[in-house]
């Protein structure tokens, strides 16, 4: 997955940046779905330097999710079905930061609005590959299959979507 201009960085690769001192570093925390089942572990934080914050959690998914072997939801029109299935080695998935709550006392990331099946049907990627907007949009479609956002977002204001702001996302119907 290549993109012309890199807009997402693993925090690990930005040696001059760190999590702000009064914010939790959730790397290593368990990710739990709507039924409180562990679906993976946060391996990295994907940040956008322009807005100076984390926009996605990079989650190493649990083996049970991979073993469920569901086809991904929301195949783009131009892509062949064989290109779109989850392949071997694709064991990471991204979760927009606004779609989770942080349980600081137990060090858990709670994805209350995403159930186990949705996780297992979300397109995954191989760790180390750079992400593009197409993948991001596919993932958001998978998580938003019940609620389609009203607004249209272009590249400039992509991270102003509800999914990246907990307050806005929790107010969404």
């Amino acid at each position: 997955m290549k993109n012309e201009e890199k807009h997402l960085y693993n925090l690990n690769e930005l040696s001059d940046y760190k999590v702000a001192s009064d914010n939790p570093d959730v790397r290593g925390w368990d990710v739990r779905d709507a039924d409180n089942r562990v679906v993976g572990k946060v391996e990295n934080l994907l940040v956008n330097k322009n807005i100076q914050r984390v926009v996605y959690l990079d989650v190493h998914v649990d083996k049970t999710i991979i073993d469920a072997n569901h086809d991904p939801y929301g195949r783009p029109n131009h892509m062949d079905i064989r290109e779109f299935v989850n392949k071997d080695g694709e064991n990471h998935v991204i979760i927009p930061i606004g779609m989770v709550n942080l349980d600081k006392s137990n060090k858990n990331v709670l994805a209350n609005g995403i159930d186990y099946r949705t996780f297992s049907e979300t397109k995954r990627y191989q760790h180390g590959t750079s992400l593009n907007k197409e993948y991001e949009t596919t993932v958001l479609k998978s998580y938003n299959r019940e609620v389609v956002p009203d607004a249209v977002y272009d590249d400039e204001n992509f991270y102003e979507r509800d999914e990246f702001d907990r307050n806005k996302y929790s107010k969404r119907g």
Partner: protein
Amino acid sequence: MAEIKIEKKKPVWPWILLVLVLIVGVYIYWTYNDNLNETEQNEMVTDSIPQMNEEFNEMEADTTSAY
């Protein structure tokens, strides 16, 4: 609320520079003190030599007069 901000790390080099300056300062201080002590010791030695010489000369003079 799930919001995680990032910030630029504060540069470490000013602290390294400060430590280096302190180390150099301490080194210069000790070296200067050592030099002072050495100078004082040298002066003491220099002071004592004429006295010894004078005493020796006096003794020599006495011996000569005895002959």
